[in-house]
């Protein structure tokens, strides 16, 4: 008990930690999270970043930021100034506007991948594998082995390098067939390929953790009770088992977001991810990371690099705090 008391952050009472406070466990954990300064600062930073990404079109339309595609060759490679707070790139484009639009790319890729790979695949397959067992379990876990044993980055680059034309031509067919214009121009096929590939390789870890939890949970009395009362398998899975692993899901999602954002960076850096003229952090960093450019125009890498580092730092700190708060036993 003495050690646990020492771990309390200021403002937490022992009663709350030991479970005497009212409310659901998740609600309590969130309240404890919000009492940690580091977690709140990280959350604020992440929230501000996502807000910046989501409002990029609005900021552009209201001319708060400049047009990210507008080239001003008389003012290329200028340092930070009042009109261009982050300076201008080699084509005289406003770097601030490009950073804002790049954050939109990050928002789309992380959220979309999280919902396909993180939630649907990892949670769904983890639940299924752990609860149903038998050959279903074996099959899912062995498929997981295949994905885990493949060198991830190599595979991601390979998939994006070889399948891009295929996916684009399918998108072009869809566009012609349905008459919806601009599918290919919007860059949607690139996004779909990137988060498809990321999801494919991202679910294994999460599914394994959830499976191992379900394996022990399904032997507990409350599951037996539910089953004896005539609950169907989906009811047991989603009403009884899912809420019990929700804490693990929350933690692994918060850790997963940083990983997804990082993979986008790597893919685009290698030229197989998001394609120009659409800005993304991978492209912004790649354009300015040659030593000669860096020597003369360090600000070009400093601002996007700094923001990405800040985002990863916030994700890491938040993930740490979440692990502490949501899975007390795991420490």
């Amino acid at each position: 008990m003495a050690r646990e008391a020492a771990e309390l952050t200021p403002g937490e009472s022992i009663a709350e930690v030991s479970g005497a406070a009212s409310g659901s466990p998740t609600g309590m954990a969130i309240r404890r999270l919000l009492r940690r300064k580091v977690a709140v600062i990280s959350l604020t930073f992440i929230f501000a970043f996502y807000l910046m990404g989501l409002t990029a079109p609005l900021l552009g339309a209201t001319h708060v930021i400049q047009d990210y595609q507008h080239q001003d060759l008389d003012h290329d490679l200028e340092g930070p100034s009042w009109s261009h707070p982050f300076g201008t790139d080699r084509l005289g484009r406003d770097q601030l506007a490009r950073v804002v639009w790049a954050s939109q790319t990050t928002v789309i890729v992380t959220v979309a991948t999280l919902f396909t790979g993180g939630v649907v695949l990892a949670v769904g397959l983890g639940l299924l594998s752990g609860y149903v067992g038998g050959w279903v379990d074996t099959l899912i876990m062995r498929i997981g082995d295949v994905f885990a044993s493949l060198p991830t980055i190599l595979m991601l680059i390979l998939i994006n390098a070889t399948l891009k034309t295929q996916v684009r031509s399918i998108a072009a067919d869809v566009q012609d067939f349905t008459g919806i214009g601009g599918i290919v121009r919007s860059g949607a096929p690139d996004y779909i390929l990137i988060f498809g590939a990321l999801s494919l390789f991202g679910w294994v870890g999460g599914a394994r953790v959830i499976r191992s939890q379900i394996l022990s949970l399904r032997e507990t009395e409350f599951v037996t009770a539910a089953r004896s009362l005539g609950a169907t398998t989906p009811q047991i899975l989603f009403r009884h088992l899912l809420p019990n692993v929700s804490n693990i899901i929350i933690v692994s999602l918060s850790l997963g977001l940083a990983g997804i954002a990082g993979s986008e960076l790597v893919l685009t850096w290698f030229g197989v991810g998001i394609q120009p003229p659409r800005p993304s952090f991978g492209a912004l960093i790649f354009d300015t990371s040659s030593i000669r450019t860096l020597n003369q125009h360090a600000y070009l890498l400093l601002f996007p690099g700094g923001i990405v580092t800040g985002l990863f730092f916030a994700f890491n700190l938040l993930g740490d705090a979440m692990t502490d708060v949501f899975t007390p036993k795991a420490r």
Partner: protein
Amino acid sequence: MDSALASYLLRRLLWVPPILFIVTFVTFTLARLGPGDPVSIATGQFRDPEVLERVRHAKGLDKPIHEQYYIYMKGLLTRGDLGESYRYKGRNVKDIIFPAMYRSAQYNAVALTITISCGIALGVFAARKQGTWSDPTAIGSALAIQSIPTMVGVPFLLLIFALKLGWVPASGWPRDCNVSLGFLGGNYDCIGVLSKEAIIPVIALALPAIAVWGRYTRAFTLEVMKEDYVRTARAKGISEFQVMTQHVLRNALLPLSTMIAFSLIGILEGSFILENLTGIPGVGRLAFESIGSRDYDLIMAITVVGATLFIMTSIFIDIAYTFIDPRIRYGSRSG
């Protein structure tokens, strides 16, 4: 070895061939789906359709994919033939991939040693200082360094130490001497990690990962420090140093052994971005180049060698773990 463990091991080993079959088939097909093939990329713009067809036919690239796959696997399984590179004309893949691995392994091994020792030291320090400001400061600084992406950090390191201060060369790898390790084939450079060129890559690889090891060590150490036997050890009056090394660390480092084993496979895999930024001719750069030039056999070799190492190591770790920690038993339905 008890029978439960033996049957577990047998079941795991039986799964290896099917998994490797899927891994190789998927990679083989995926590489061939893309636009262009090694022949058209190698010839560039000056292409004569007739010559292209003739070369494709000679290399068997005009056959259906499953037939090509059969030919490849037959060569691999009967003769251990990893194929021939297109980009490095006519050279055996074996002579390219193993020297590259040898280079990647050098700087990886040095970096991993630094990372693990600094990480464990950091974790133990933070655990001992729990409740004071030094704990969050130490872990927080390590986390901050971890958050800098390689492609942002390395250019700045190169700018400062190579360009401004001139202490180290900006990129490259020494190639002025050759040693032959006959049984693997190919020529091996001298130990390049001892040269100045390796300093930045090693630092760039070692520093960010310290946070990972530091955090795990801290968590495991805290877990062990509250055990009764630690209190007993203190009560019988042995020195704090002995308590930490003999009672706390020995138990706290047990879970870390798995992580160390998995990191050891990582040694043979190059770091993609780092090798491209610093010009190390290792596996990471080789892999990226081979995808760019559709060097089919090279892509296959890198994947097959990597996947085999990974699968065998994870089985080995499972087995080794039962000896390290006798509490673990593999029942009839774990797997």
